């Protein structure tokens, strides 16, 4: 029987894994990596169990130390957090599988600390999602952030500076969050989320509370790289090692998005009360700007990882639009897009790491159609994920866009509809640019210069399989999206929508 203890198990498995990795892997990094893999698999298993438990019996809540919530810390698994846990631990597991070969190639001799830091990132992210206490959330946020800064800092030469900027922005974000929490705590007297939302329901939202929420919003938005607070992201994702990017990019920003959903829609209460503050509209407009800005800049990039980074900025904008629409359909689209984008982006970054391993670079102008012959499966995984990013049916990407479009139309927010649709075209532009080079002959090269026969030189299975698995998952998610929407997302739609 699945009890509430399962909430506790997910971060704790990661936590002890992270502590054990240096002990086991001090001499041999690979052994440490094995430990990390075991921990990641365990956490994935428990989060599936948690999701099943939530589906069966509704929200689970675990009181740490046995103290009742406002007194002690509470871990809560409601439909939203259970869903996100599965996303985080699933991507986390695949990323850890992927890590070994990639790290050994790009940053040799650092597999042990890398594995440990990867588990720490996952500890932080899973803890942020599952905790029911706003200060505890801050602690987890810092754990994941610090480990993330370190992971980003090692890679190409400019990585250390990129990571420093990430650290600066991240610390500012965290300070904003903590200051906003101070305002809320001083005016409402509690740190527990459930308690706080009950308090907000009975009291008027004063200017102080509003500013407190605004600060939380800004803190989360900085972490989420929401336009115009995205400055740290492109450099960080480009210069970090592929394994680090593949771990952080798909889920890091999503969890920040989760904080926004939690604070704006659950704490504040959706519907009437939520629309009283302009924060949701602000979020939606910033999201729209992010979508356009990110997509346009992605078109201009010549380095694959950098292009994907800008595309992340845009995709985060979709989530922001969905949340900002403040309606059931928009919310559905946003949450579905969290899942879809995690899968798509992870797959794309996995492939880009594979390219770096085999080609030694990931610069788009240097791709040729030798790639397709040398790495057919990687290319196919990339193509499928790219089609999903563009939003072509029946891949998953289409359906999140579909719900977002329905939500925008339902509320007659034509601007957002236009942005959503226009951005699909921009996505098509920057992805087809890559696909064209991957799959087609480049005219202008003399036949003599073309490689006549290209040996099969596929990425190693441990790096290939995660990408292929995620890309195939996109089709499954696309066709099975009703099940996800009805069974998983339906119960988590905040009251008042």
């Amino acid at each position: 029987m699945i009890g509430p203890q399962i909430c506790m198990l997910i971060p704790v498995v990661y936590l002890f894994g992270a502590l054990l990795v240096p002990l086991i892997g001090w001499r041999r990094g690979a052994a440490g990596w094995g430990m990390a893999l075991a921990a990641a698999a365990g956490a994935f298993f428990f989060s599936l169990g948690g999701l099943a438990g939530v589906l069966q019996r509704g929200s689970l809540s675990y009181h740490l130390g046995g103290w009742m919530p406002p007194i002690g810390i509470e871990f809560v698994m409601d439909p939203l957090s259970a869903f996100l846990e599965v996303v985080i631990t699933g991507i986390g597991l695949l990323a850890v599988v992927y890590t070994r070969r990639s790290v050994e190639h790009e940053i040799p001799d650092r597999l042990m600390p890398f594995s440990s830091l990867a588990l720490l990132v996952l500890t932080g992210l899973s803890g942020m999602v599952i905790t029911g206490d706003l200060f505890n959330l801050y602690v987890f946020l810092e754990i994941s952030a610090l480990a993330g800064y370190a992971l980003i800092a090692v890679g190409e030469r400019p990585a250390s500076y990129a990571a420093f900027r990430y650290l600066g922005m991240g610390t500012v974000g965290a300070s904003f969050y903590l200051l906003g929490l101070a305002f809320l705590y001083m005016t409402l007297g509690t740190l527990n989320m459930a308690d706080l939302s009950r308090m907000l329901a009975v009291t008027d939202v004063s200017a102080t509370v509003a500013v407190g929420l605004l600060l939380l919003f800004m803190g989360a938005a900085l972490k989420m790289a929401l336009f115009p607070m995205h400055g740290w992201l492109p450099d960080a994702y480009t210069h970090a090692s592929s394994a680090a990017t593949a771990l952080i990019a798909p889920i890091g920003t999503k969890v920040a998005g989760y904080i926004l959903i939690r604070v704006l829609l659950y704490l504040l209460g959706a519907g009437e009360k939520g629309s009283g503050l302009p924060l949701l509209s602000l979020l939606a407009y910033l999201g729209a700007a992010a979508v356009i800005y990110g997509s346009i800049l992605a078109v201009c990039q010549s380095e694959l990882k950098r292009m994907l980074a800008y595309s992340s900025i845009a995709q985060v904008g979709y989530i922001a639009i969905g949340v900002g629409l403040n309606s059931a359909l928009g919310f559905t689209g946003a949450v579905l897009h969290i899942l879809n984008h995690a899968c798509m982006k992870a797959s794309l970054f996995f492939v880009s790491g594979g390219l770096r391993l085999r080609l030694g670079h990931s610069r788009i102008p240097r791709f040729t159609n030798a790639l397709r012959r040398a790495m057919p499966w990687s290319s196919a995984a990339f193509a499928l994920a790219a089609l999903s990013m563009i939003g072509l049916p029946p891949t998953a990407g289409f359906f999140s866009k579909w719900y977002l479009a329905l939500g925008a139309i339902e509320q007659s927010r034509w601007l957002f509809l236009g942005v959503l649709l226009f951005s699909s075209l921009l996505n098509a532009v920057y992805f087809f640019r890559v696909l064209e080079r991957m799959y087609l002959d480049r005219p202008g090269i003399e036949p003599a210069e073309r490689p006549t026969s290209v040996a099969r030189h596929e990425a190693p299975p441990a790096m290939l399989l995660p990408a292929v698995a995620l890309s195939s998952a996109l089709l499954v998610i696309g066709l099975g999206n009703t099940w996800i929407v009805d069974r998983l997302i339906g119960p988590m739609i905040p009251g008042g929508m």
Partner: protein
Amino acid sequence: MIDLIRGHYVYFFLAGLFLIGLYAIMFKGNLMKKIIGMSIMQSSVILFYVSSAYKDGGTVPVLDPRRGVENPDLYLNPLPHCLMLTAIVVAVVTLGVSFAMIIDIYRNYETIEEPLLLERLKDEA
């Protein structure tokens, strides 16, 4: 007005401190100065919590047998103190990690002045 200032001067001061820290992060070119700014900002938040714990007529939250524990107004609020112990540790560790990064940056580019650094990055790319 006087009441406002008497009751809130600390908070105004701390808000100012927060902004000073933020200013340093945004505008200072030297990476060490940025870190100092970061530290100032974090300290201001920590002080925010700590000063919110203060109660007129309260004493430190250590059991005083003469006062008893029936009336919570006689002790300062212990919760923010505890929270800030954690926040301080976080701030310290952040400092440590950022120092490590600065060392790494210096190893790679032999400068920690941002304008110079950006130039060298551009040259490299």
